[in-house]
């Protein structure tokens, strides 16, 4: 009987069922609907990259503008999409909280698994597409690139978890979060080199964790890039603090989240 099952096994079973449900229901019940979860951020990424390449032909660093803009846009897409979709998770699945076995954290974790998996597919397909177009997108330091991507997805997960709780309680949070993410995007160094900015402005932008994601990923492609500015520990700790706030909020406000489902 379930009551005597290992609680971790129960949670794993609930989360895996929620993952399948999310994949089959978010954009329709067909396989094409599941593909959209990956295709949407990927097409956004490719569209923005083409736009930047066409608009700005001068290469700021290295020899290929596709690599420069790609390494700037990829962290933004890997942060923006998971954070946004995780934010919607509780509100979209609130009726499930009427089932005694389903917890708020299960719903957020299930959506996070789908989004993190999608983020890795986006990364792989993006690099493959660049290769198909003759762009050498393989990093000089693959470990650094991989760690930068993992750290960015961790940041997205942390933002998403906190936002899922806040959005479930305050609908206005969606607008606030989109605004924050847009500001993070424009100040992350996607289309400029932060080291070329005046020190005063650079010191302010330093507090944007997404800037460190971009710097970290680019440092895996360009020798010496990010030196004096990149702080891997700041990215990690800012994500951890945000996640801690989200976990604490979920624990403290769980009762209110559940009342609204009843």
């Amino acid at each position, binding site marked *: 009987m379930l009551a005597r*099952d290992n609680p971790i096994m129960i949670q794993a*079973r609930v989360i895996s069922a929620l993952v399948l449900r999310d994949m*089959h229901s978010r954009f329709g*019940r067909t396989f094409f609907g599941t593909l959209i979860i990956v295709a949407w951020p990927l097409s956004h990424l490719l569209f923005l990259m083409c736009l930047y390449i066409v608009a700005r032909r001068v290469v700021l660093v290295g020899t290929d503008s596709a690599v420069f803009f790609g390494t700037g846009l990829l962290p933004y897409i890997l942060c923006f999409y998971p954070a946004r979709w995780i934010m919607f998770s509780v509100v979209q699945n609130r009726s*499930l909280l009427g089932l*005694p076995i*389903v917890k708020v954290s299960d719903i957020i974790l299930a959506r996070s698994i789908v989004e993190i998996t999608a983020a890795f597919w986006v990364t792989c397909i993006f690099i493959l597409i660049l290769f198909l177009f003759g762009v050498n997108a393989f990093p000089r330091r693959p470990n650094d690139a991989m760690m930068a991507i993992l750290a960015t997805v961790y940041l997205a997960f942390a933002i998403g978890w906190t936002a899922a709780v806040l959005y479930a309680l305050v609908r206005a949070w969606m607008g606030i979060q989109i605004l924050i993410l847009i500001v993070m995007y424009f100040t992350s160094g996607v289309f400029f080199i932060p080291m070329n900015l005046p020190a005063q402005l650079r010191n302010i932008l330093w507090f944007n964790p997404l800037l460190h994601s971009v710097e970290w990923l680019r440092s895996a492609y360009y020798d010496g890039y990010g030196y004096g500015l990149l702080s891997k520990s700041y990215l990690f700790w800012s994500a951890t603090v945000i996640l801690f706030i989200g976990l604490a909020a979920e624990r403290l406000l769980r009762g209110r989240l559940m*009342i609204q*489902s*009843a």
Partner: protein
Amino acid sequence: MIKFENVLKFYRIHRHRKVVLNYVSISLQPGSSYGILGVNGAGKSTFIRLIAGSELPNSGRVQRTTRVSWPLGFGGGLHPNLTGRENVRFLARVYGEDPRQVTEFVEDFAEIGPYMDAPVKTYSSGMVARVAFGLSMAIDFECYLIDEVMAVGDARFTERCRVEFNKRKVHSDIIMVTHDTSAIREYCDHGIVLANGNLHYFHEVDDAIELYKRINM
């Protein structure tokens, strides 16, 4: 066993604090079925949700060592864009049951024919109730929660619900909220009256019904 330890539950309604359970402690024993009575607005449904764990107390603890159902006939877990079959398979997976067996049972019980493969949003409310009730019967629970709804559909289907439910009653407990005192007499061993934030436990159901009638006059 379901154990309430010093449970406080209240809602704030227009700056007014409505206390549903006022530091209540009670143990609901396995092998016994309980009928919960109370006037409208006393908080019976809230009490059921606290038992289920789909709502939390403001303070105190609710411990469960038994597999508790969702309130019988609850259709909130059904996703409108998924088919009846997909929804049934999802809930079977969640509860660790064989999806094929649960689907076969619900398909046979709900009698909605080809609608089983249509999205739930195309169902009538009666069809949703049939699938939801079938799901409650398809998954084995040690304790069934009933919030007024004991059967759904027309007279024939209502009778079918009763027959199926009586089969579960043999090896499962029931915690029932209803104004129907004859149903309490039929299904429950003990009675609880919820009034003014307090639970009044009665070993004999008739004693609980008597108090309920007095406070309901």
